[in-house]
């Protein structure tokens, strides 16, 4: 029981150490105009997990605005459209997108459109309209817009893409903080938390901090077992079910 959990934690810690080191090096290049960190670099999904909040805090070298972008592990996504066929609604066409973040949220100290122009928003993929992922199929422009909008809408409904911008609050002129909320269905993997310092309509400094979302304890044991030894897992599931059914049957006979 203990072995795999311990190994898992050690692996996660090693990965984190490397990433934090990388992040720190990147930060020094930026001459420490902006320093930010998270209250926790590991979100542990245990059996009682119902979502959690992580505090991001930091400081700037002088007055300025701050934007925080949280991006989950990227993967492919398929959007399917239903159309009426013989009275029934069935999937007719689809579009596949690559490099779609599984989670995406942005927090800013002031509304983004007051801070920077469109080219900067596009360059840093700031805000849902500027998030970049390209479809593999060539769709007509009308469909492009519809499928893209559908992808964002579905993600928002699942609570994985923020509906509104979060608020970064300043304590005085240089200290800032924001709360990042992760729902219970948060995908596992390596997250990127990017803090951007904005002055005079441009990004002058940036720092990236890693965040790991991982299952631990019983949840981790079960999903590891299911993934690594699927046949044994199936046999165990059937045996457990037979035993439970038998036990219940026997218990009720005496009543």
């Amino acid at each position, binding site marked *: 029981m203990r072995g795999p959990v311990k190994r898992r934690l050690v692996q996660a810690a090693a990965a984190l150490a490397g990433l934090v080191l990388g992040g720190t090096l990147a930060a020094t290049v930026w001459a420490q105009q902006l320093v930010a960190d998270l209250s926790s670099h590991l979100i542990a999904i245990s059996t009682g997990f*119902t979502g959690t909040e992580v505090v991001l805090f930091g400081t700037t070298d002088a007055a300025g605005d701050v934007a925080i972008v949280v991006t989950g592990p990227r993967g492919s996504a398929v959007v399917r459209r239903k159309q009426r066929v013989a009275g029934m609604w069935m999937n007719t066409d689809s579009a596949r997108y690559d490099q779609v973040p599984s989670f995406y949220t942005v927090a800013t100290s002031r509304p983004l459109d007051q801070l920077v122009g469109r080219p900067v928003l596009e360059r840093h993929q700031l805000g849902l309209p500027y998030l970049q992922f390209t479809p593999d199929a060539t769709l007509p422009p009308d469909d492009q817009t519809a499928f893209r909008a559908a992808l964002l809408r579905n993600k928002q409904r699942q609570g994985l893409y923020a509906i509104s911008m979060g608020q970064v609050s300043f304590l005085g002129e240089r200290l800032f903080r924001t709360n990042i909320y992760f729902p219970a269905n948060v995908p596992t993997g390596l997250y990127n938390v990017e803090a951007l310092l904005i002055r005079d309509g441009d990004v002058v400094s940036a720092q990236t901090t890693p965040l790991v979302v991982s299952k631990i304890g019983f949840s981790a044991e079960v999903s590891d077992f299911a993934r690594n030894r699927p046949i044994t897992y199936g046999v165990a599931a059937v045996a457990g079910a037979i035993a439970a059914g038998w036990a219940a049957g026997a218990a009720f006979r005496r009543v």
Partner: protein
Amino acid sequence: MQVYLPIAEMSVNALLVLGMGWLVGFLSGMFGVGGGFLMTPLLIFIGVPPAIAVGTQANQLVAASVSGVLAHWRRGNVDVKLGVVMLGGGVVGTAVGVWIFGILQRLGQIDIAITLSYVFFLGTIGGMMLVESSRAILRRRAPTAKRGKLHRHIWLHGLPFKMRFQRSKLYISALLPAGIGAVGGMLVAIMGIGGGFLLVPAMIYLLNMPAGLVAGTSLFQIIFTTAAATLLQAATNQTVDAMLALLLLIGGVIGAQFGTRAGTRLRGETARMALSLIVVAVALKLAWDLFSRPDDLFTLTMGFS
């Protein structure tokens, strides 16, 4: 109380899932149906991904069937010989079903095929049972009505390989129960259900089996088909959530015990009437979903590669 499901990767209310398991277990014990046709839509309704709903409830059906069979066994309501013959057909049917599933998947229309087969099978069988059971209840109220023949002989009863099933007091072709088992096996593979809602009426109307033996015998057969389905789902798709199955089966095994007791107090036609009403209701709901405009015409599937 919220519990995190490790395979479905979501958090659910434990009491809600326990309650759902109990309800489906109760119906399972009462009517001898697996209850999968109810559990799949219920699980999808609370947000469990369809593939995991199908894989996991196959697992919980194993427990519910074992517990249900034990209760029927003690009352001597299981015809093992007939069940084994049905199981023989069931194995062939499952293999054919997996093959058909593969073809539909390659055509990209597996979702609608599953929903359509639910609507078709549940609608047809539920409707037929509803008509038959209400007629039977009306006949009971009017005792002067002419009594029908005890056995109607149709072409099905003229098939070869006749076998004697002492327990059920039947002398019929072995092809008949094996064929019913084969269709049941196909449904396990394609729709991810035990197939009891099809087996029970088929055993009553096609085999003319004594009503008391039907529930126990169909449950006996369902243990093996659902166990095979669980293994297949876990090994190939990794869609069996042990945590979800545990919650469902705790509720399910308890519910099944109560259901079996309640079932013995019900008259055959009343039980069939109640079951047919539930089956028809589920069919209508699924048909409604198929024909009414969905809230969002677009759906999203994420995959990591």
